[in-house]
């Protein structure tokens, strides 16, 4: 390393006197290290910062009613200062649960197929297409939902299920429009396909080849190998993939908003309309500053979303990180 940290050089170049100030190379290197580390720290602190900012803005709502009442009350009358999140939380849970029930089986089957069975040509073709599915903007999913999924639910699914299973309240179709929990769940399911497939496929492929060979050598069929060896080995990672998909569905806004009906009532059947938390925020941001405490309530809804997604995401990421680390050791 050179001894001087900063050097000033005088030199003649092209007939002009020029003065150049140059930092010592080592110093430049260390300075960059410090600056980039500060930036990285800033990015890492972004999530806690978001939580803090939302909490501070949402705090006035806690002065009006206690947390328990906010979460469990069903009355939502912003003008009278009554903010019960219960119908919205339950709405989110309904739509997300339906989405996961629809999404998980095909996603996992596809992930296993692509990682264990598919010839490399099929894989090379299918993977970019699945990535493409992840890149489609959520309003476009919404448009597709309104044009295709809602009429499908209204004209085909609702009458059929109502006729054969209508005696079960869950499948009773009182809502004639098609906009509701099932439509929202179907659209969300397609949106989380690429997430679950991508993560699960990667996890399954990372399972040690030797385990597969040992199982096949014992005379097991490929499916038996998958079922008893590969999936058992990769269960934590596959679960993490599903949880990541769940938290994506939990926070999705535009596409759901467009097909779910937005009626602030607790749904009783999969054909009833629902009103998820995300839709609540997006539909009412315009009036948020004109009604007292409304902004605190809506930002409080955003805080609930952030906390739930944070918990699920952190848990699944920790599992995935550990798996990858075990793999490399």
């Amino acid at each position, binding site marked *: 390393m050179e001894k001087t940290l900063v050097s000033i050089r005088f030199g003649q170049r092209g007939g002009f006197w020029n003065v150049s100030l140059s930092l010592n190379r*080592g110093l*430049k290197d260390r300075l*960059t*290290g410090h*600056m*980039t580390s500060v*930036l*990285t720290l800033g*990015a*890492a*602190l*972004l*999530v806690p910062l*978001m939580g803090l900012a*939302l909490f501070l803005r949402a705090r006035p709502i806690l002065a009006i009613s206690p947390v328990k009442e906010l979460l469990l009350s069903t009355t939502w009358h912003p003008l009278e200062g009554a903010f019960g999140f219960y119908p919205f939380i339950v709405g989110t849970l309904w739509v997300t649960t339906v989405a996961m029930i629809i999404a998980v*089986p*095909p*996603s996992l*089957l*596809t992930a*296993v*197929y692509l990682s264990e*069975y*598919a010839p490399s040509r099929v894989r090379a073709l*299918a993977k970019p*297409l*699945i*990535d*493409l599915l992840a*890149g489609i*903007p*959520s*309003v*476009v999913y*919404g*448009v*597709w939902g309104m*044009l295709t999924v809602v009429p499908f639910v209204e004209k085909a699914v609702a009458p059929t299920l109502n006729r054969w299973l209508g005696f079960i309240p869950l499948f009773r179709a009182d809502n004639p429009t098609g906009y509701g929990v099932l439509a929202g769940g179907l659209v969300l399911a397609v949106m989380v396909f690429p997430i679950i*497939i991508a993560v699960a496929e990667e996890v399954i492929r990372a399972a040690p080849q030797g385990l597969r060979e040992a199982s096949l050598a014992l005379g097991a*069929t490929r*499916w*038996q190998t*998958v079922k008893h060896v590969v999936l058992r080995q990769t269960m934590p990672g596959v679960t993490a993939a599903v949880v*990541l998909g769940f938290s*994506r569905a*939990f*926070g*999705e806004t*535009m596409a759901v908003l467009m097909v779910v009906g937005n009626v602030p009532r607790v749904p009783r059947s999969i054909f009833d309309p629902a009103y998820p938390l*995300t839709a609540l*925020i*997006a539909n009412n*941001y315009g009036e948020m500053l004109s009604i007292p405490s409304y902004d605190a309530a809506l930002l409080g809804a*955003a805080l609930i*979303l*952030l906390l739930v*997604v*944070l918990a699920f995401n*952190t848990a699944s*990421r920790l599992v995935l990180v550990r798996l990858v680390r075990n793999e490399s050791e």
Partner: protein
Amino acid sequence: MNRRKAEEALFKTLMVGATMFVLGSLVLILGTVIWRGLPALNLAMLTQTPKGGYYLGKEGGILNAIVGSLYLAGGATGLALAMSLPIALYLQIYAARSRAAELARLALDVLWGVPSIVYGAFGFIIMLWLGIRASLMGGIIALALLELPIMTRGMEEAIAMVPFALKEASYALGATRLETALKVVVRQAMPGLLTAVLLAFGRGIGDAASVLFTAGYTDRLPDSLFSPAASLPLAVFFQLGTPFPAVQERAYAAALVLTVIVLALSLISRRLAGRLTEHVIR
């Protein structure tokens, strides 16, 4: 013996079926958007801003939204790039295998999963602090934060692929970490870095929930950083919300324009990555 074979065949059929179902849904989405959007698309849609009575079905176009979206996503991608590249270099070159880097990576992964509406709400709070209204600037800040984890993780992956021997050779010649990063690693990882940038741009241009709060909506082209800006996703959303079929048709056309932009970006990044890889040492 036969039961095992039958089970094997059954599940293989199910798997192929599931894969076809997933790919079929992609075809169905693209097909629906093209089929409904194409008839409503014309040159005036792409080259004019909304005229009086546009939202009742009179003439005009969505140029305001196209330009607004390009400004928003362009500005956000620039801002995110200025933060992402240094962070990715720090994580891979300066702090490669440290505990701090692990934690930062975890934080970025978690950030990736934060719903876009929460970015919108957070952007809105920042705007209140800074005292700016819904504007291009507000939208750019919210979108840049949304793009940050996508771009950083993408870049990091690209940088991690650079062969260790190249770095070692550079260090052995007496280069500092900074010199190695800028002159060897960045050059070598260029295709991957560009892919990450384009991916983030595509995510930014398609996101609606975060700009809903922060960028506002206007029929005019934005003329400064502090004037409101329209965006394509919101153009789709608002036009669908009107009760006039003629305007809803235009929402489908706007959705088609947005889809084409996103697909084109994805294709370009694939081609670009392929072409630039030719000059990369392996």
